[in-house]
């Protein structure tokens, strides 16, 4: 029998059966399908193969070991090229600390304040004439409960305390944005 491609010997289009199996759509001709051995065979085969696709999709794909480190190593390289540095002049040579690192110190200091759940921080020179004085911009997510302004003041206090001690820079100002308040049960 000469059967057109993509049609069963009974004339049913393979296309319709694929839609039926993959979309769980109703049969276009249930009376015929219930009696037709060609349709029954095709539906059985298509259902089995579709289950294979679903099985492949459900198969866990673990993240390869070291992938995060590789990604971040490359990003850190790029970030290092873009970042500016703060210079501490010394008798035996200069020490450069990147503003990104100073921002990280401010971020970690902010996280020590109870009620601060997340912080990001940016440090930049306040005035070209005095590069040792830095302006900080912090964004926080805080817990539900503590007063936001008291918490912001506590963050300013720890940043003021840590930055000069750990980096030698001085803090010109600290702008704080509360980006979010976590729900009470978080």
């Amino acid at each position, binding site marked *: 029998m000469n059967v057109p491609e993509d049609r069963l010997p009974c004339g049913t289009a393979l296309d319709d059966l694929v839609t039926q199996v993959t979309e769980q759509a109703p049969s276009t001709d249930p009376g015929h399908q219930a009696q037709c051995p060609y349709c029954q065979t095709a539906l059985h085969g298509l259902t089995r193969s579709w289950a294979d696709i679903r099985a492949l999709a459900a198969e866990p794909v673990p993240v*390869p070991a070291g992938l995060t480190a590789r990604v971040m190593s490359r990003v850190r390289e790029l970030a290092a090229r873009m970042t500016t540095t703060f210079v501490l002049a010394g008798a035996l040579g200069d020490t450069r600390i990147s503003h990104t690192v100073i921002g990280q110190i401010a971020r970690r200091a902010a996280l020590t304040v109870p009620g601060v759940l997340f912080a990001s921080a940016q440090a930049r020179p306040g005035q070209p004439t005095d590069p040792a004085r830095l302006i900080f911009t912090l964004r926080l997510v805080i817990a539900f409960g503590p007063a936001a302004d008291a918490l912001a003041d506590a963050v300013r206090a720890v940043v003021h305390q840590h930055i000069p001690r750990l980096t030698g820079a001085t803090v010109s100002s600290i702008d704080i944005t509360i980006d979010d308040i976590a729900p009470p049960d978080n």
Partner: protein
Amino acid sequence: MVVDVDDRILVRGARAGDLDAFETLVRRHQASVYRVALRMLASDADAQDVTQDTFVRAWQALGRFREQSAVGTWLYRIVTRRSLDVLAARRHATVLDDRQPAHDGDPATVTEQRQRLHAVTRELAALPPDQRAALVLREFEGLPYEQIAEILDTTVPAIKGRIHRARLTVLKHTADWR
């Protein structure tokens, strides 16, 4: 205390140069990015390269990220485009997923199952790239048609058409239907 910080807040932090915020985004999204690359490219090595490239590009483009979009959709868009670029450069070379996932059970059954899944992987790899991308995002990532259309910059009817053609081709070549 660990808090589930919204992606957009992490993006704001990363934009300000906070690498820890960006690393949190990487950890949060790398599994889906790698999975899409692997299903698109059928090669672990290429998928790892594309995953790395996706996040590097995302880092470089943080300033252009529009906050009304979801970060996940934005990353899906980058990884899909990068994967399509790699496929275009690869031309006719066939590479198949060389990972060996662990399976429990009767060795004969496991072997048969592996062969069947390998056949599906081979047919996926033979699909035209635009169909493959749509099918991967739909069947492997479970995304709605609207989101796939946004990721691939086309319309929902076009996506539905691509996915149907992809399903038809894969099933036609893997199923015993005659």
